[in-house]
């Protein structure tokens, strides 16, 4: 057994564990914050006040909701398949959190007392594909929730959602291919580092990928089931969609959290691949600025989500499918061809 | 380092489970899944050989096998849907219009 112990690098494991803990906490808390911002902003757009009773400006409202989720009675509908019904939220939340380990928050920063530290848990050779793989696993949660609840609204919501996610995942991945061609790597950190030219402004969105960015953004919104593509949970037709039968218990909290973390992931991916990640002016001299830039870029996407939700009507289902297959997919393919041609000319 | 034979054994066991599944399962979709399991077992063999021979061919082959599996799945499920439209059963034994 001693050989096993010797082969372990304890410092590395400790460092990784601390980082994982930090990222996990960020993942856990981001839904709380995002939810508050979303409610307040929506209220602003709709000329309402929004939550303003619990704590200053209603800041504690989401936390109160969280506490309620934990303590509320957990009801499993009689007709539901208990096993699948319970499994669904877990299946949804685990891949969502597994992605967080490759978020590249910032460059290597020289921390006091610790020394230079990388601002991500890990990075690998196939990081981008890893993100896509994990997000593609999330769809099972939706499917199982829809199927396990054994209710027609849930089933329809689940069916719609899986069809939608499968369809838009194609154009989402293809939209990333152009940027991959330009950076010549699938490693998220390398992709970010590749965009550090021009004083930190050589982002892929400026370097020949504007079309890719737009395609990515649209498919990403559809992928996360947000307005105007929130067909799976269209309240007016499907009550709550796949989570109709989940009362506000811990299970619902998990579904909810997974959705917000997925939104975060999609925003991180957009930032990393198209908006230069942590890159920006003066990052080379003050690496800490990288963290700030990253946060600002993510916040921009989060605000975009809310803004869209406040202003756009919902698509019809056939429109959604037609748009995905007949407009976005061909555009994504054209984008790849353009990127390849530009790549041949420029590099 | 895990010995090559362990991987080969695992993949052979999985392949065998797949074969047995094809023999005992009566549900067409599950039967089809057993075939997918068999293909996966083969993939494991290919990747482990590729690793131990130090040759990339095995991994390339796996890549091709995955493409084929995807195509097969698409066509196979389409066939199942078209059968189901005409006759509402997925029991292999009941697809017996063409008797032996």
């Amino acid at each position, binding site marked *: 057994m001693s050989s096993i112990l010797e082969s372990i690098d304890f410092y590395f494991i400790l460092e990784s564990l601390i980082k994982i803990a930090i990222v996990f906490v960020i993942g856990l808390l981001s839904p709380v914050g995002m939810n508050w911002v979303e409610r307040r902003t929506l209220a602003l757009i709709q000329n309402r006040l929004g939550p303003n009773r619990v704590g200053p400006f209603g800041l504690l409202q989401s936390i109160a909701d969280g506490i309620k989720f934990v303590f509320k009675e957990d009801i499993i509908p009689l007709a539901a398949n208990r096993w699948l019904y319970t499994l669904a939220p877990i299946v949804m939340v685990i891949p969502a959190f597994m992605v967080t380990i490759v978020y590249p928050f910032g460059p290597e920063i020289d921390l006091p007392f610790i020394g230079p530290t990388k601002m991500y848990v890990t990075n*690998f050779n196939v990081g981008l594909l890893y993100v896509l*793989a994990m997000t*593609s696993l999330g769809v099972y949660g939706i499917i199982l929730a829809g199927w396990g609840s054994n209710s027609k609204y849930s089933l329809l919501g689940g069916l719609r959602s899986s069809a939608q996610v499968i369809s838009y995942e194609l154009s989402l991945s293809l939209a990333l291919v152009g940027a991959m061609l330009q950076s010549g790597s699938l490693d998220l950190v390398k992709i970010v580092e590749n965009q550090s030219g021009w004083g930190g402004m050589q982002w892929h969105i400026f370097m020949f990928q504007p079309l890719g960015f737009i395609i990515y953004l649209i498919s990403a919104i559809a992928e996360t089931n947000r307005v105007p593509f929130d067909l799976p949970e269209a309240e007016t037709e499907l009550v709550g969609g796949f989570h109709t039968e989940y009362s506000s218990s811990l299970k619902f909290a998990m579904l909810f959290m997974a959705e917000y973390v997925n939104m975060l992931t999609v925003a991180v991916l957009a930032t990393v691949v198209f908006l230069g990640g942590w890159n920006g002016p003066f990052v080379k001299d003050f690496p800490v600025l990288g963290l700030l830039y990253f946060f600002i870029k993510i916040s921009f996407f989060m605000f975009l989500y809310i803004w869209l939700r406040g202003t756009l009507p919902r698509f019809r289902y056939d429109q959604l499918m037609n748009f995905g297959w007949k407009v976005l997919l061909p555009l994504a393919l054209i984008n790849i061809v353009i990127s390849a041609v530009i790549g041949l000319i420029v590099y | 380092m895990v010995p090559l034979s362990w991987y080969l054994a695992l993949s052979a066991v999985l392949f065998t*489970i797949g074969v047995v599944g094809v023999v005992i399962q009566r549900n067409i*979709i*599950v039967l089809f899944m057993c075939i997918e399991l068999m293909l996966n077992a083969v993939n494991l063999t290919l990747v482990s050989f590729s690793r131990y021979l130090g040759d990339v061919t095995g991994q390339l082959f796996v890549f091709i096998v995955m493409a084929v599996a995807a195509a097969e*799945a698409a066509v196979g499920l389409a066939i199942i849907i078209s059968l189901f439209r005409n006759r509402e059963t997925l029991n292999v034994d009941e697809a017996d219009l063409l008797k032996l």
Partner: protein
Amino acid sequence: MEQIAIDIPRLLFLAFAGIAVVAAFNLILQRNPIYSALSLIVTLCVMAALFLLLNAPFIAVIQIVVYAGAIMVLFVFVIMLLNIREEESKIDRQKYLKWLAAPMFLALLAQVFAVIRYVDTTPPSIPSANAPGGNPAESLGTVESIANAMFTTYVLPFEATSVLILMAIVGSMLLAKRDSKQDIERIETALDAEQAEQEQAHLAAEKSNKEVAA
């Protein structure tokens, strides 16, 4: 036999192998297709972990993207679409096959373990007929090495895959789509023509019969 050294990769392998085998058994023994599908997904994900253990990160990730993320979603989707719940207990006409399965299983396993003993005792004589130069253990299995092979040596199979995929798209669209109005019309016209022809032939036959009678 020498002492088997236990190290972390071996422990991981044993854990993953255990999960894979249990899930595979669950796949074939379940009556409810959705449970079977879930077991298969577990097996596939474990397999991806094994690929990582084999230093093949690209294949591992592709395994999840393609198998777990696309193929199995399709399976689950079809199960949902056709709304297949638990199999009712029907009389299994081919029950004898189950008795066939056990000895078959044992025979195959025996054969398998014979081979494994054999592989363990025979050292590999040559590494590979076409091993690339350099240090393959480091680079083998990365995106770069696979891409290099794919676009040089294996460019023809890679291109041929596109024919395969295109054909699969055409084929599955054709088989799975509902009959459009146009299709139904066309089939009906064809059948009508057939019927008209038959009637005409029938009339002609009657006429000739009458003539014969006359």
